[in-house]
């Protein structure tokens, strides 16, 4: 009969369990980034903030825990009520969103965007021929279309985008219900407009582009 290794096996198994438990604890803390947590009531401390695992709808998610104010004096002072710790500069939610965005960032790096130019046609008001705002607006479209693709959206209709200086140009091409006094609109059917004069008049922007109308 061979000598029994049972005590050694038990010891090794215990060490393995402890090691895995330790790793699971670490990964749970890391998982605060996705918001999902493993067990209701579990508490982790990250950057001096405590997070408690709570049920929200059908999910278990990390929720920042209110930090009780320390008791000041032993007798006559009323019991302090729990209060949320002030956050001087950084909200933890923002940091968690940074992590949530990582898959989108990766897809933006990897995806093939060669077909995007077929998705949209841009029409520019002749008054904006020399406008830097107009050029910047046109340039912004590329990333917006890439993001659209990464989110899994392919527009049903080709996008027709009108960049206008005032309503006259855009109103020629947009449906009546879209002739509102606003800086931009999505009128359905792929029709979009941006009215840069509206922004200049309503938001100011130091009046940089007001020189355009003087031409």
């Amino acid at each position, binding site marked *: 009969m061979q000598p029994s290794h049972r005590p050694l096996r038990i010891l090794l198994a215990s060490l393995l369990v402890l090691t895995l438990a330790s790793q699971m604890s670490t990964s749970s803390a890391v998982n605060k980034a996705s918001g999902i947590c493993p067990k209701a009531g579990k508490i982790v401390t990250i950057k001096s903030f405590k997070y408690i695992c709570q049920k929200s709808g059908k999910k278990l998610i990390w929720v920042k825990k209110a930090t009780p104010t320390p008791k000041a004096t032993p007798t006559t002072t009323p019991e302090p009520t729990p209060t949320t710790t002030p956050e001087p500069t950084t909200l933890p939610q923002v940091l968690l969103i940074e992590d949530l965005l990582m898959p989108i960032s990766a897809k933006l790096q990897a995806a093939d965007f060669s077909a995007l130019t077929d998705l949209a046609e841009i029409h520019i008001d002749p008054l904006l021929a020399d406008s830097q705002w107009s050029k910047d607006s046109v340039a912004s479209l590329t990333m917006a279309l890439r993001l659209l693709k990464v989110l899994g959206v392919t527009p049903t209709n080709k996008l027709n985008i009108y960049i206008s200086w005032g309503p006259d140009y855009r109103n020629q091409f947009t449906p009546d219900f879209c002739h509102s006094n606003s800086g931009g609109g999505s009128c359905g059917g792929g029709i979009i407009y*941006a009215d840069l004069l509206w922004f200049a008049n309503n938001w100011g922007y130091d009046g940089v582009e007001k020189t355009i109308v003087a031409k």
Partner: protein
Amino acid sequence: MSKFGITANIPHEIGHVAQEEFGIAAKNSDYWNYQPAWLREGGAEFFKVLSYSYDNKLSYKEIHDLYARNIDTGCLRVPLSQMTGQGSYSHACEYTKGYFAAEYLVWKMASIDSLFQMVRTPGTDTASVFKAAYGFDESAFEKDADAYFAQVISSRT
């Protein structure tokens, strides 16, 4: 702020295209009747913010802080529960405060996709569609998001 305000206008409208397309894909073209204004405009703002941050190589925190620095504090007095219809609201808070409410929703649901979950959820009134989409009450969420907005304002640098 001027470059952000001007050049990000079209990405905001593309954000509405995303909403519309998710609604079409879900055969839920009535979504706009039930989606609160703060989620409609705040969701499009969130899309715009992402697009601008990637375009200009800013971290999410940097763009969040840029947005927060320029926000109208008048929105502190306009609760999200007042921005549930189809109209326009005081200080254009459905856009700015709506953005932070959308951010809070993304955090709470741990998913960017949550911005479009309500668009994909059929129903006949805002409260029940919201509950079906997210699993919690709209009114409770709006109070929490109001508090989050106040926290953003008080902590901005």
